[in-house]
């Protein structure tokens, strides 16, 4: 139905020319889903935009053809293209907050294509919009038609986006990272919705994503892109089962999965993707490839067009065989010594004043953290997971005394730090360090890396300037960066490098506790594994107690010895990693786990029933009783009335649920 042949795109910006798409060939059959996957900047979006005829200013298709049902799209006149757009080909964008016009009612926005392409009257279009919104699962669509985008939650907005794209029943829909901005739980719902609609409306779909798991679960065919080229393409099972391209293979190996052996180090791809404005000879992946030869460097491999058997094609001189390479090193994980807990959190609460207070007092509060208790032993890593907005970061900030709790205590080495004066806190500061999420924001843009790393030592008055510089060099070495980085400014480093600097700085004062808030979520997959490995190694080498905060369950599983699952300011389940991931006792934990797509098309799908439905309620007025009950399949009367306390299931495994799952249930 859609055949892209040898497509090349060029974007001219002043005297710089970028070639984000280069000789791309892909095909898509009616009713099928084609997944396009790849790292940031690999040209996925540009390919999609090229099909839509919506390349950015200065961009044009330089070669190749796009054939949609026998109609050539390249070179089509603007007016004709407009008639196709939104009618035959539609697109779903990533960020529904910015993709919806903030000052127009959603009804109008959804109805607009109908009026445009179908020439429908206002009333007809509105009716059609309502019908469509119902179809995408927006509750009470008739009332919602007159809402503004900001009045909807993220998931709802994404549904509206989808309704808008599908309202004219296009033959092809291009979904560009439709769920990246959403929580896993909602991501699963949206992707299922798209699948469902595709089959119901008989459309074809191009699903652009950087998540291999999503591809494995939702795509019929895959195109793996790297540096503007298709590295490998083929039907999903074939591509995952018999991976040929070295890049695909490396990519698959570097993702921490829920099933992998935790003691294995992750595979990581060295280096960074190439600059697309520089024309390379040879294979673009060559500089990062383990199996590289001179030929790879000199001669570009033939484009992945000629299909092998099963439509499987790849552009590689030295194809691999098999799905994955595993990390070579195995980490020795010592059993944590049972000692006095280093960090103890007792019934911690934090409430923020809500933005809009009434005119006369009556301030409402956001209950960000509502009574959390746990302990972290020396040398132990405690992982905190939960959906966005459940209070993880708020908790993390209190752990390192950056914020004072509304009530409760953080006890560090037997001393409560929460009520300490700034002066008393001073020397203890060095013991409690934090690694931030946004490596860009956490490094002073005005300071060189050397100064940044010397700063903690200077503040604490450690050593002479020369000694500090030497120490900074050591720290850099520890995190695997060359000493030359000392003289650079943060913006001269890549994201991964910056994150390493952030880690080095946190380690500069030899802390006993390290809190890492979303340490890798801003990083691309290939770089993420480098940082994860590093963190893991440092934790083990230094015997740090750490708290790792992430919304990504796989990341936490990889780094943490023990895990706490947070829901709306409360800890609903704690236990060792094996306990929680192996036999989740809380329906929420189980739901989270079920929502994560495994990068294995053969993996069994969790039944939709096990999933977490709907979205996080407002932390301003949390539900009574069990906070999860509004989204829980097992909720009963009791749940609404009584708040379940955290009670032991087995040994170290605790759960706060009136109806905990048993081992067998959580598996299914």
């Amino acid at each position, binding site marked *: 139905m859609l055949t892209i042949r040898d497509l090349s795109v060029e974007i001219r910006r002043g005297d710089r020319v970028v070639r984000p798409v280069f000789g791309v060939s892909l095909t898509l059959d009616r009713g099928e889903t084609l997944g396009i996957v790849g790292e940031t900047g690999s040209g996925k979006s540009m390919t999609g935009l090229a099909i839509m005829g*919506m390349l950015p200013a200065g961009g044009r298709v330089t070669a190749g053809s796009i054939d949609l049902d026998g109609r050539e799209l390249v070179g089509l006149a603007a007016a004709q293209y407009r008639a196709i757009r939104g009618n035959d080909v539609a697109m779903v964008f990533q960020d529904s907050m910015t993709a919806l016009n903030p000052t127009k009612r959603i009804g109008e926005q959804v109805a607009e294509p109908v009026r445009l392409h179908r020439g429908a009257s206002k009333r007809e279009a509105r009716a059609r919009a309502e019908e469509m919104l119902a179809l995408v699962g927006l509750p009470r669509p008739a009332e919602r038609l007159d809402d503004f985008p900001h009045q909807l939650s993220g998931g709802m907005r994404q549904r509206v986006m989808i309704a808008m*794209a599908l309202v004219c029943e296009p033959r092809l829909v291009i979904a560009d990272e439709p769920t990246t901005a959403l929580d896993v739980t909602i991501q699963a719902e949206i992707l299922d919705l798209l699948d469902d609609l595709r089959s119901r409306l008989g459309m074809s779909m191009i699903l652009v994503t950087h998540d291999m798991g999503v591809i494995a679960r939702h795509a019929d065919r895959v195109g793996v892109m790297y540096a503007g080229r298709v590295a490998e393409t083929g039907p999903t099972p074939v591509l995952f089962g018999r991976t040929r391209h070295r890049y695909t293979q490396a990519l698959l190996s570097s993702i921490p999965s829920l099933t992998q052996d935790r003691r294995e180090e992750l595979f990581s791809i060295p280096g960074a993707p190439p600059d697309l404005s520089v024309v390379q000879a040879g294979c673009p992946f060559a500089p990062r490839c383990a199996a590289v030869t001179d030929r790879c460097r000199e001669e570009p491999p033939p484009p992945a067009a000629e299909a092998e058997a099963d439509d499987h094609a790849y552009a590689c001189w030295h194809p691999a065989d098999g799905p994955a390479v595993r990390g070579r090193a195995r980490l020795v994980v010592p059993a944590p010594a049972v000692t006095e807990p280093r960090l103890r959190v007792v019934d911690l609460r934090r409430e923020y004043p809500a933005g*809009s207070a009434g005119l006369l007092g009556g301030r409402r509060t956001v209950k960000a953290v509502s009574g959390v208790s746990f302990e972290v032993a020396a040398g132990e890593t405690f992982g905190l997971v939960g959906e966005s907005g459940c209070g993880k970061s708020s908790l993390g900030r209190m752990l390192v005394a950056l914020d004072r709790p509304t009530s409760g205590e953080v006890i560090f080495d037997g001393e409560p730090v929460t009520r300490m004066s700034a002066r008393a806190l001073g020397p203890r500061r060095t013991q409690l360090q934090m690694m931030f999420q946004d490596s860009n924001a956490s490094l002073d843009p005005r300071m060189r890396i050397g100064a940044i790393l010397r700063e903690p030592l200077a503040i604490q008055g450690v050593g002479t300037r020369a000694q500090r510089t030497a120490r900074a060099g050591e720290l850099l070495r520890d995190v695997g960066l060359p000493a030359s980085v000392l003289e650079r400014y943060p913006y001269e480093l890549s994201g991964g490098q910056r994150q390493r600097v952030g880690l080095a700085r946190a380690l500069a004062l030899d802390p006993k506790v390290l809190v890492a808030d979303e340490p890798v979520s801003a990083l691309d997959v290939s770089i993420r594994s480098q940082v994860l490995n590093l963190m893991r190694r440092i934790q083990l080498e230094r015997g740090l107690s750490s708290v790792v905060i992430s919304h990504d369950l796989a990341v936490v599983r990889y780094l943490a010895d023990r895990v706490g699952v947070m829901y709306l300011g409360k800890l609903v389940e704690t236990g060792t990693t094996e306990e929680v991931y192996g036999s989740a006792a809380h329906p929420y934990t189980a739901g989270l786990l079920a929502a994560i797509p495994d990068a294995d098309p053969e993996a069994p799908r969790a039944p939709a029933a096990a999933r977490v439905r709907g979205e996080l309620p407002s932390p301003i007025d949390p539900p009574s009783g069990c906070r999860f009950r509004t989204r829980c399949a097992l909720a009963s009367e009791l749940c609404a009335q009584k708040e379940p306390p955290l009670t032991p299931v087995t040994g170290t495994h605790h759960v706060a649920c009136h109806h905990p799952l048993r081992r067998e249930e959580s598996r299914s």
Partner: protein
Amino acid sequence: MTWYVLRRLAVSLLVLLGISAVVFLMLHLVSDSPGRVVLGQRASPEAVSDFNRAHGFDRPVVVQYVSYLGQLLQGDLGRSYKLNENVGTLLALNAGRSAMVSLAGLVLALLIAVPLGVLQAVRRNSVVDRVATAASYVLYATPSFLVGLLLIAVFSQTIPIFPAEASQSHSPWVVFTDPRAMALPVITLAVTSVAVFAQYQRSAALDQLGQDYIRVARAKGLPERLILTRHLLRNACLPLVMLVGTLVPTLLAGNLIVESLFNYPGLGLLFLNSLQREDYPVLLAYTLIGGVLTVAGNFIADVVVAAADRRIELST
């Protein structure tokens, strides 16, 4: 929305109270013995102090302020020292004319600047854009009275098509009834604002053009013209609305200069003449009204923007 408006209103009232206090105190510092100003050069010191006592100008400032505030609340702006007239009447007599000419200038400026700014954004870096930007820079750097003078020099002296003086009629509608006589003042007001507005509109439109919803509109197959009118325009105008709201003092200042330049008898000229005459009640009242207008401008702009973009009320 209602809550938002009420809350904004409460803040505005607070600010107004602050303004009245600051302005009153400052003017009190400048002129603390009205008796001399009122009675003139030949009055004896006794007559002056009698006058001050009779009118309560010998009381502590705070007391005077409170009683002034009390009068204000009853709509009494005081009596001019020099014009044998109530300040309220004086202002009312002149307000219409000033408002009309200011509004005409503002509307004209917006009518030019909004499309121009959008055009510049759409045709970014084109010749049109560059020329308009350059012109804006130069205009921005030109004192407005010089703009007016140049206009007079060109359109009234070299090619005499417009009179150098504004209409002296005191109908507020003179902008419409005698457009020829009002052309230069209105153009002066507009020209100086266009520079700012167009550039502001341009960057706002550029901001919006980079937003995803514009791409979405394109993906729907909407022609560019409709994208601009249906989607871009409203969003891109909101920052300008905010700007105009905060620009009231500047508009008033522009009015002052234009009225003085074209000898247009309105509030601005009244203010300047009162300044010469040390007619403090008029100065005080008009400065206060300027403050009120500014606060009102901000308030209206906020409400308009909040009504158009409902996210605002949540974020404040």
